[in-house]
């Protein structure tokens, strides 16, 4: 009797302890096997593939399967995956989207793991780590990289226009007359008969080279299109960031800036919006059809890789308040709440956020990793390739950055703002039409 009781007791104890560890799956299962990881930037794929290989060497019972999808496909397939229960275990997350995902409880909170594994959040560039703490106070990601905006320019065109690189690096702008920024852009615009944009007889309907390239209307953020200008006037997208609940597209300063921006296309210094469909701003630059492109630091590899064009990078113009501004975006890797490989995923995310991986990314000179030490290494790697990236790193050093707007309902906001901004930038509607769009946007938050 006693023996059997003892045996039963032991069995019960074992059973209890087994059920105590690991939510749905046994903990052994959740820390082994293959985990799926998604990203969208094909340029970064080689770097992360190497990270995955190194990770598997260090953790032989975990393999990482990386899938790359183009930007549009990425988000719709991801959402579909959440709905269908087939989302990836780990995926690259974006500030503009993560609010909704957290709200819909699709992300796994990693506070416990971060604390347990002593992740040093101060090693990241300032402000990045806090961005990934949701409205509920829980952490949903570890910073991966950051980016800012700069002006890519065609050195040869500058030289033949008589604009010095020094001038280029010290441009000024204001919404009334565009400052020296507009002057340079106008001067760099050349029509088919060779006349420059600021010369008499310039034919704005027959432009051969545009002074400034155009990506699109910019929808709700205008990350590369206009935010580096609008935010120098003291304007910001939302009442507070992150987690604002009121957008400011009805602000007079903002609308003036957009009027100026749309005016550039009117004057012939910037391509018409309709011509950007099916084309890419970077490729148009490479074809010699634009002299300056405002774009993000993640594009450095692409721009400097074009054959036959010498590219320079200048910081964004100084605004009417005497300061520069650049949108500061940071990506992070998040874990899907429904993952069956929780422990393995956490290990992978921590690896991605560690110096081991971020140094690899830095060495490939494609983006700036989030860790301070790694991003310095990236700057060095860029320099070793002959690319001067101070235009991007300056913003971080001088704290002239502002965050990508992080709120709820971003998909709906974008759905409202994309056509509204397109209408303004294409000249179809005046900037004052944005007030009505703004009302619709703010109605989402009531």
């Amino acid at each position: 009797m006693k023996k059997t009781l003892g045996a039963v007791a032991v069995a019960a104890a074992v059973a209890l302890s087994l059920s105590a560890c690991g939510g749905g799956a046994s903990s052994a299962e959740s820390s082994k096997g293959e985990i799926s990881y998604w990203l969208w930037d094909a340029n970064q794929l080689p770097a992360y593939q190497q990270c995955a290989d190194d990770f598997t060497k260090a953790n032989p019972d975990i393999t990482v399967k990386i899938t790359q999808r183009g930007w549009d496909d990425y988000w719709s397939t991801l959402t579909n995956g959440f709905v269908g229960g087939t989302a990836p275990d780990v995926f690259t997350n974006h500030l503009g989207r993560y609010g909704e995902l957290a709200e819909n409880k699709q992300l796994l909170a990693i506070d416990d793991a971060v604390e347990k594994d002593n992740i040093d959040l101060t090693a990241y560039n300032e402000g990045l780590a806090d961005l990934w703490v949701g409205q509920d106070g829980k952490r949903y990601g570890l910073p991966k990289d950051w980016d800012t905006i700069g002006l890519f320019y065609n050195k040869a065109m500058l030289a033949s226009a008589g604009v010095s690189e020094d001038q280029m690096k010290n441009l000024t702008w204001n919404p009334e007359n565009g400052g020296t920024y507009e002057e340079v852009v106008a001067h760099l615009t050349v029509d088919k008969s060779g006349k420059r944009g600021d010369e008499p007889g310039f034919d704005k309907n027959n432009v051969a080279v545009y002074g400034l390239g155009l990506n699109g209307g910019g929808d709700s953020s205008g990350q590369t299109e206009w935010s580096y200008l609008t935010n120098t006037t003291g304007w910001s997208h939302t009442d507070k960031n992150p987690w604002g609940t009121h957008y400011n597209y009805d602000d007079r300063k903002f609308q003036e800036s957009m009027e100026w921006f749309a005016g550039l296309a009117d004057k012939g210094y910037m391509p018409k919006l309709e011509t950007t469909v099916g084309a890419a701003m970077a490729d148009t630059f490479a074809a010699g059809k634009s002299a300056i492109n405002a774009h993000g630091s993640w594009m450095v590899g692409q721009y400097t890789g074009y054959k036959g064009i010498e590219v320079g990078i200048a910081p964004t113009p100084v605004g009417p308040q005497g300061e520069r501004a650049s949108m500061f975006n940071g990506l992070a890797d998040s874990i899907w709440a429904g993952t069956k490989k929780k422990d393995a995923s956490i290990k992978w995310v921590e690896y991605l956020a560690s110096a081991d991986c971020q140094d690899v990314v830095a060495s490939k000179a494609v983006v700036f990793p989030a860790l301070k030490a790694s991003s310095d290494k990236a700057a060095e790697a860029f320099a070793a390739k002959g690319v001067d990236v101070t235009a991007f790193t300056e913003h971080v050093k001088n704290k002239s950055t502002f965050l990508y707007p992080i709120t709820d309902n971003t998909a709906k906001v974008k759905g409202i703002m994309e056509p509204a901004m397109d209408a303004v930038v294409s000249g179809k509607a005046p900037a004052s039409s944005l007030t009505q769009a703004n009302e619709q946007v703010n109605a989402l938050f009531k």
Partner: protein
Amino acid sequence: MTTLAKNPRSVAPAADKPKPHGSLRRFGDLKIALLFIAPAMIGFIVFYVVPTIRGVYLSFTEYNILGDPEWVGIENYTAIAKDPLFWNSLAVTGQYVFLNIVLQTALALGLALLMHQVAKSTIIRGALLLPYLMSNVIAALLWFWMLDYQIGVVNQFIEWAGLPRVAFFGSEAWAIPTQALINTWRHMGYTALLIFAGLQAIPGHVYEVAKLDGASAFQTFRKITIPLLRPVLVLVLVVTVIGSFQVFDTVAVTSAGGPVNATRVIQYYIYQRAFTESDFGYGSAIAVILFLILALVAFIQMKFLKGNESDLD
């Protein structure tokens, strides 16, 4: 028209055997009929009837798929009435349908007459049918390439002709007409074949009589061909109109509703609200409205054009 090769009346019914299932005939087939219909019935109920009911139910809820539906009464419908994008989608779709019908019917009718006149070979008909066999996605991408603003071949020719390049997909004025053109290109062969078959069905003697009576080509066309073609034409019209209202594939793959809202057709807008913006209830409500519109359109067409009757009979 194809018919089953008839077996000659070689089997004489045996005179002394009584007819099987005599008076039971009326009901006797029910059991077996049910068996035969069962699978189709399952499909019909599960994937047509139930979704219809559920769709109507969902239109009265707010549902973001990841949670549970929340009943909100007619809120979705009142919001739709005030939604500029909804009215825009109606206008845009209407524009598309109109352009499509006019172009497609005119071209198809012309082609059918040409074929009837000049050449009836399968090869020619096959060549014209080729675009129809390709999917909407393929047709859209093919033209997306050929009409590209920077390096598309069509714009190259336009430039050679001395005209300014046209941003077919980027310009608001051109966006929907371009979609209509793509759709017409894809369907004109098929529609032409439909009408062609109808032309073939008109007995030759009718024309001979007309000719003997001294009717001119135009009069023959107007007074004989068109009226006899009416059932076919009506069918073609109804099918084309209903089909055009449901344009989605070509838009999704090329312009995604843009530029601005110039190609945000109804079905695309429904997809956008339901799947991209996770607003299933709202999307369902618009779908209900679309269904009602289509039912109305079909009803009006059949009623006014009297497609059920054929003047030949």
